[in-house]
């Protein structure tokens, strides 16, 4: 249901900050799970500033990066449990990232639902 009013509603969403890519954090690999950590996707700023991406695409990207951040934190947690993690702060940073990404996604979802409800309640 692509009502033109949605563009206006999307412009009222808070500007999403850019999450740092996890690939830039200096995890040396240690003897933990094999394979390098895939860099997490950065969440592009939503709203009028980035008109080329639809809102749905933005939301999907945010959710994907959440998956990546959570998987990353899980991997490092397991490596810390067996005592293989070399840098403690790597896990703490990844865990914080995952928490923030979750909160962000939840906030975006809430705002989207709120906007949708507002639109649905408008008299036709």
């Amino acid at each position: 249901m692509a009502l033109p009013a949605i563009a206006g509603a999307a412009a009222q969403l808070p500007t999403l900050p850019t999450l740092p890519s996890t690939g830039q954090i200096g995890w040396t690999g240690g003897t933990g799970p094999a394979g390098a950590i895939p860099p997490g996707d950065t969440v592009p700023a939503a709203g009028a500033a980035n008109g080329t991406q639809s809102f749905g695409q933005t939301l999907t990207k945010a959710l994907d990066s959440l998956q990546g951040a959570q998987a990353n934190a899980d991997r490092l947690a397991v490596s810390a449990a067996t005592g293989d993690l070399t840098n403690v702060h790597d896990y703490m940073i990844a865990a914080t990232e995952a928490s923030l990404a979750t909160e962000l996604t939840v906030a975006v979802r809430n705002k989207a639902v709120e906007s949708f409800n507002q639109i649905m309640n408008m008299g036709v």
Partner: protein
Amino acid sequence: MLFPTFQTASSGLGVFRTWMDAVSDNMANLDTVRPTSQAAFQARFVVAQAIGGGQEAMTGGPAGAAVTGISFGDAAGRLVHDPTNPLADAQGMVRYPDVDMGDQMTQLMIAQRGYEANLSVIDRAKDAYQQALSIGRG
């Protein structure tokens, strides 16, 4: 290794503890008299070496120090003229160990400082890691 600094500091503690043990052994035997037919009490010296190199330490590899052996001092000792000693030989000479108390006390102080320095490393590292554990909390 999750906290490599602790292993390193612990190896340092081991080396200085062994050193202090050796010095206490020497000091306990300052007056151990032997007849001239036997070797004198030989002072103990601790031989220590570094584990690994600088590169491995930075990436969490083996680091620290280890005792690789004990070497012994002069077996001839000091010949002292003491005819009243039951161990004295025909000329009245006995062997005293070639251990100098002043030198041993100095070594003891150095070993103690080294031991305390390693303890302080453990303490500071523990504080640092605890700070890391509070990343992202509130």
